[in-house]
């Protein structure tokens, strides 16, 4: 159930980082002059000797974190998602992923959530870029509880984890089970169609399932908070048991959740599919809700996708 209080995912991340910092002396945080935006500044205020502001130099920051991890620390590297995933991609690839160093990459302001700043700042390809790297785990939390749980799971994981964080507000759902990387949650049962959601699309997808139920369609909602490794069993079961699949992501359709699911189903369990996501265009300035509407990411768009299947 969603609680009444809604909070920006960055605040949830920033506060939880401080809580984890108290319990984990090996945890250190790095930021590239956006710590007051990503909220790692809270960690810096609580643990000044364990916080490093690297200035506006993301590639350097990632390689510095590689050195820290090699020396036994557990660095959390924070910046805007597009800067980590594209400007620092070589450093992430060649050092963090190649050697599977336990570095947590926290990509803030992801998807369209840096709405007013426009297409230059919106991060619509980060999941594709990072999923393509061997050894990399990619998590897109869909609410407050998953944001906190993902951070904890990443800290337990012996390898690199990218956590995709939104600037937008989110609710707090109860975790249906203990959070595990790569293990999906079935958020709503149903057998008429399966809606596979990740990250900031989780709430809209649950809303869409509610609308469909009003029309007598029982949709299963599978919460794929971890895009890589993909919970193949959950996806295959959804295709087998529900027959039709709609994937929902706030990301380009090329190389994101929809692509991953389509690849899996094409090989193992072919099923009719629709993909909700951004169709190979950059974003633009606008309100967050207006952008989600512009690029077809609303509950209504999901409902229309479901209704488009042949009966």
């Amino acid at each position, binding site marked *: 159930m969603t609680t009444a209080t809604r909070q920006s995912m960055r605040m949830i991340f920033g506060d939880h980082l401080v809580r984890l910092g108290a319990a984990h002396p090996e945890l250190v945080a790095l930021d590239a002059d956006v710590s007051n935006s990503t909220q790692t500044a809270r960690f810096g205020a609580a643990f000044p000797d364990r916080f490093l502001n*690297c200035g506006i130099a993301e590639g350097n920051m990632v390689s510095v974190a590689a050195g*820290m991890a090699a020396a036994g620390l557990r660095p959390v590297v924070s910046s805007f998602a597009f800067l980590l995933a594209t400007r620092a991609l070589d450093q992430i690839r060649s050092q963090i992923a190649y050697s599977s160093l336990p570095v947590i990459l926290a990509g803030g302001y992801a998807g369209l959530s840096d709405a007013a700043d426009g297409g230059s700042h919106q991060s619509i390809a980060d999941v594709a870029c990072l999923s393509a790297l061997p050894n990399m785990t990619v998590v897109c939390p869909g609410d407050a509880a998953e944001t906190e749980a993902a951070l904890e799971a990443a800290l337990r994981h012996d390898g690199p984890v990218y956590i995709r964080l939104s600037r937008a507000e989110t609710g707090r759902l109860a975790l249906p089970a203990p959070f595990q990387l790569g293990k999906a949650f079935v958020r709503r049962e149903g057998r008429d169609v399966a809606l596979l959601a990740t990250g900031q699309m989780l709430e809209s997808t649950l809303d869409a399932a509610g609308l469909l139920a009003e029309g007598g369609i029982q949709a299963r909602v599978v919460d794929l908070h971890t895009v890589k490794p993909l919970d193949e069993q959950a996806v295959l079961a959804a295709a087998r048991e529900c027959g039709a699949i709609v994937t929902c992501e706030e990301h380009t359709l090329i190389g994101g959740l929809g692509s991953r699911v389509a690849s899996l189903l094409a090989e193992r369990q072919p099923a009719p599919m629709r993909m909700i996501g951004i169709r190979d265009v950059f974003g633009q300035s606008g309100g967050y809700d207006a952008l989600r509407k512009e690029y077809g990411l609303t509950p209504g768009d999901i409902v229309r996708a479901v209704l488009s299947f042949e009966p």
Partner: protein
Amino acid sequence: MTTLTAAEVSELREEAGTLRRMVIEMTYRAGSGHCGGSLSCAEILAVLYGRVLRHRPAKPGWPERDRFILSKGHAAPMLYAVLARQGYFPATWLDTLRALGSPLQGHPDMRKAPGVEMSTGSLGMGISNGIGMAWAARLRGERRRTVALVGDGELNEGQNWEAAMLAAKLGLSRLLVIVDHNRVQLDGPTDEVMPLGDLAAKFRAFGWQADSCDGHDPAALYPALVKQSAGPPRVLIAHTVKGKGVAFMEGDHRWHGAPLTEADYRRAIAELEVAR
């Protein structure tokens, strides 16, 4: 002691020669590998591993060891030669350089070869890695040193200068960067491809301490490498010759990464034997 005896100097010269022969042997056998930039850092690595770094080859994970990063990862053959000579792994491994399944990858892989502290190959990242390691040591009150060897060509990468600013901001006095200043990069002389200017002056302008020395003279290298002082991080510009020790390779960019024919191999080994 900040100086070496004449006997120690001659021993290190001889060791550098041995390392060069090992590099020629292993790259010839592998059919590829970077000779030029390996040969230019023979004395640097011989002095570092033989006399300067605190390390325990039988225990590569010894927590108090000094850390060494080969930022110019294409000089992997020279690093492997010195690690084998120091006892990190058997010299027979060198025969597997670049072969399928070998721990001795074309560029150093920290997950595969004992003694390799950081995976490198994509250039311009080693100083940043060194900052992370030195910062971690300081955070934990450890006194170990961190040393990164960078090529002069890779200083074209802007990340080095991002790192230079950060290391100075942090005042990492236990971080030493060595520039293997051999003045040749893949496509040609550094002066033609991308002029570097006065490197010592550049680093000083970034807030570093800077020294320079003859990178092929153990007597000059040793005091420059053991020197430690409070204050900002330090760079040592080691003036070297690409392909040093093999006349037909010296200063010639075509030997950055070209494979050796049998005739090349015989000439190179013969020359290195004579120099013994």
